């Protein structure tokens, strides 16, 4: 039933600071997608226009979610989760292959990326499970179930392969368990196990090469820890820059040059030479490397302003979590906020050359419809929790 007065009343209760941050970031995104798609003498508005359209669609979708009670969404979490898992399996079967990975589904002429929807679906599912009152968080069983829930999309996405996307689930799940009051000793055990695995993987990448093992043995060792040769290449290129400047290393190096040469004030909008002269490839500049374009053209001040808006968004999300009316709302907010934080951090660090190229887009700013809808849905859920929050006096 549509009750317009009630709906407007609900929307009026949103956190307007967050709303300003969201649309501020989305506008910056649109502006720089335009700049990043531009080639001298060419006016590629198509990508920008498409992004604007996606923004409209996702805003409407988010508004609908705000109006809808998050508890209703949580009730249907099984359905949502089930559908995304089916979509992820479909991707593996009939997905579109681009650059050696099956990540896209062709859906009536639209390419959608189910792994992006899986992020929100999994958060909803986890929040629903972890907020059950009958769970004893001093025991291992619920933790195992939570990892099982997260493990399904992680495995399916990892098989695409999109390990960067899959890894987003790990800190998100962890943060949700942390806030869900899982006992310290269990969390600590998880952290130590995780670190041990990372060290093992690093060893599998570096040690056989150092020992002079054959190519075959090296690949076998990688397989043991679940990695593929191209992961090794990416990680190696991260640790040994300059070894392969035209290949895996190129984007990273160009992004660093773009950011570094931006300076304090930047080169001016649509004047970034690394961007306009296509040294930062046009295929990635508007998507994963949009932050480099902002940094090059608006300099340190512009980049910090952008990061500040993200911090504002994260802070409002966490504030909503703290004031949420119940555990479910709290976990939903923490999940979405953490997921968003991981994207912002990994993406920005990647463009600065601090982390290997992971293929994580920058929320709200990177060009791409699926992720925009997914992240706006998540932000909608936070506002849905916010408008139904506990009053703190």
């Amino acid at each position, binding site marked *: 039933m549509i009750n317009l007065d009630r709906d407007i009343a609900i929307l009026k209760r949103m956190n307007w600071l967050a709303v300003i941050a969201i649309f501020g970031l989305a506008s910056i995104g649109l502006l720089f997608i335009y700049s990043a798609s531009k080639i*001298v003498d060419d006016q590629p508005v198509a990508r920008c226009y498409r992004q604007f359209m996606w923004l409209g669609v996702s805003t409407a979708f988010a508004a609908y979610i705000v109006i809808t009670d998050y508890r209703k969404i949580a009730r249907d979490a099984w359905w949502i989760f089930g559908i995304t898992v089916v979509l992820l399996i479909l991707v593996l079967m009939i997905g579109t292959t681009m650059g050696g990975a099956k990540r896209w589904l062709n859906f009536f002429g639209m390419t959608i990326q189910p792994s992006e929807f899986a992020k929100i679906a999994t958060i909803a599912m986890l929040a629903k499970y972890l907020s059950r009152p009958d769970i004893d968080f001093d025991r291992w069983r619920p933790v195992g179930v939570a990892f099982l829930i997260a493990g399904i999309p992680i495995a399916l996405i990892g098989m695409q392969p999109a390990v960067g996307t899959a890894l987003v689930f790990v800190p998100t799940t962890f943060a949700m368990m942390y806030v*869900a009051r899982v006992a310290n000793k269990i969390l600590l055990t998880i952290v130590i196990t995780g670190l041990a695995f990372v060290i093992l993987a690093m060893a599998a990448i570096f040690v056989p090469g150092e020992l002079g093992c054959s190519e075959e043995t090296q690949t076998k060792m990688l397989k043991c820890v679940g990695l593929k040769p191209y992961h090794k290449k990416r990680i190696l290129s991260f640790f040994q820059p300059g070894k392969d400047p035209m290949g895996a290393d190129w984007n990273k190096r160009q992004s660093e040059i773009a950011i570094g*040469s931006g300076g304090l004030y930047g080169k001016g909008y649509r004047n970034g*030479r690394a961007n306009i002269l296509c*040294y930062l490839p046009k295929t990635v500049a508007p998507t994963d490397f949009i932050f480099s374009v902002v940094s090059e053209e608006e300099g340190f001040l512009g980049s910090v302003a952008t990061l500040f808006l993200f911090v504002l968004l994260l802070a409002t999300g*966490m504030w909503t979590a703290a004031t949420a009316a119940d*555990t479910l709302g709290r976990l939903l907010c923490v999940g979405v906020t953490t997921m968003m934080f991981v994207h912002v951090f990994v993406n920005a660090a990647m463009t*600065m050359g601090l982390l290997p190229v992971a293929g994580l887009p920058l929320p709200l700013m990177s060009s791409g419809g699926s992720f925009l809808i997914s992240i706006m849905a998540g932000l909608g859920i936070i506002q849905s929790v916010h408008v139904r929050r506990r009053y703190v006096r």
Partner: protein
Amino acid sequence: MFLQRDTPWSMKRSDTYEFSVMRIYALLACMILAVCCLVVYLAYLQIWCRTKYADQEGDQSLRRVWTPGRRGSIYDKNGVCLAGNRASYCIAIALDRIKQTGQPGKRALTNRIHQIIGDLQVTLNTNMAVSNADIENHLRRRSPLPLVIMRDADETSHALFAENKTRFPEVELIEDPVRYYPEGKAAAHVLGYVGRGSPEKESIQENTFEGPREKPDYYMNEIEGRQGIEKAWDKVLKGDPGGHVIRVDVAGIRRDLTNDTALLEKYRDEPIPGTDLKLSIDARIQRLAAQAVDGTNGAAAVVLDPRTGDILAMASFPAFDPNKFAAGISRADWKDIVSDPDKPILNRAAAGSYAPGSLFKIVVAAAALEKGIPPSTTFNCPGYFSLGGGWTLKCWKTTGHGNGLDMETGIEQSCNVYFCSLGQKCGYYSIREMATKLGLGRKVGLDMDVEGEGRLPAVRSVRRLGDIANASVGQGAIEATPLQMAVLAGAVGTGGHVCRPRLVTGQRPPGEEEFIEIPPQPLADLGWSETTITTLKRGMRRVIHADAGTGRIAKFSNDVFMGGKTGTAEFSLGNNKKKKWGWMMVFAPYDNPRYAAAIVVEDAIGGGKTAGPRMKLLMAGIFGEKDVTQ
């Protein structure tokens, strides 16, 4: 309130709620801390390391393009232009005007280039020889520069293109100076020719430019001397190229950015034109010499001023047209010229090595006279010179010159027997010494790239009588260039003063009004005795002016006396086949010679018969206009 309904699992315990909130804020604190780390690193990159990255950005997107200065012109001694520059227009595709969508790629560019070339061919109704390999090569090596698809476009193409300019926004006309030689074939070997240079290989301008230097430089329309004066004086003629800096995109295509001009202007460097050269060549005499050697056989002529060594003319036949090379020669034409058995590229006058034949008798005579053998020495000529063991060396006059031949007559009649005997008496050591003093068997130091040494066999290899006899008549292993023979004639004419031949007499650096003269090298005085000088000169005069002189055919006037010598050298090709080199050298006028000349004709009948008339033509021409009455 609706907000409170439907809450299945609200807070269990208030203490755990607070505990949870604490954990939320701890998480938020971690996040903010992480973002702060990013900001710090961002500051490090963008503020601390800014210069480093700005330099890297410049290195990858800035390129230097060098434009050569105007190449210096070459003039003859009277200021007649021998080599200059003429404007020509090239039709070229400006790659930066080709519109591209998405990431710039070579394939899309190549397709568009083919399309443009196809359309242009139809519009201009010509065929453009641009191959796939050319385009690929250009995109790989010279992508920031326009792709030239038609060099030196003719008037018709030019006009047709102008009419259809709007249809080809990517195509432009670029001016391209082309070397021009007004004398054409006549002075081809002296001046040489030019070709497209590829100075990308060497980087001469290492220290003249401040700015980005990591990436290769590019050169526009660079001209490079390939032979003759153009090659030997290339560095002087070339001047200094001017450089400007352009932006290129990731595919290496030039891109002009609006706010970039000031930065790029900072690096601009204007070209400095090359130095003009003044040659000792007299265009009129050069044309006469070219006429004199023109014919069916290979031939060469040199005229020089024995007082200074200034080469007034230097002609070689067959010749090539240097203008053909200037605008870029086609591969087929180039192959034709290179594989021609007559070797038109070879400068026979300076680098052609021929047995001097009887011309060498003058050297023998000089050596003998200087050794104290009097000119009155007589030998008998029975028509042959006996080498012992039944071997003989025949005189050209098989009936023999008879008894009582003295040196002057020996020179006049060019008697082989006389000079074999004289050579035997004098000894090869003295002959070789005299020859070396006269500039034979070594480079005389011509200021040009090609210069032959000729050949003088070592003393130890000329020991048997036959060797000495052969050497005395300029046969055997002895070889000389026409230039060396002209120097020899001049040395006799001036009474034992050997000049050092030269071609360049003045330079005019850019900005100067007048040529700065280069003083001639002083003559080397051999200190010949009066007897030597008069004997040789009178002998040589009789060659031309006596009734029985072997070179009487070259006499063109009763007023102008000359001294000369003819020569016929036999050259064995194996299989009993022989060819003859016909020689003639003269100096004129007799008393104070201003000209010394030598002509050689390949595959001749005889020196007097073949080279004589050519020499007459040449000398008559030289004196014909003004000098006859003097």
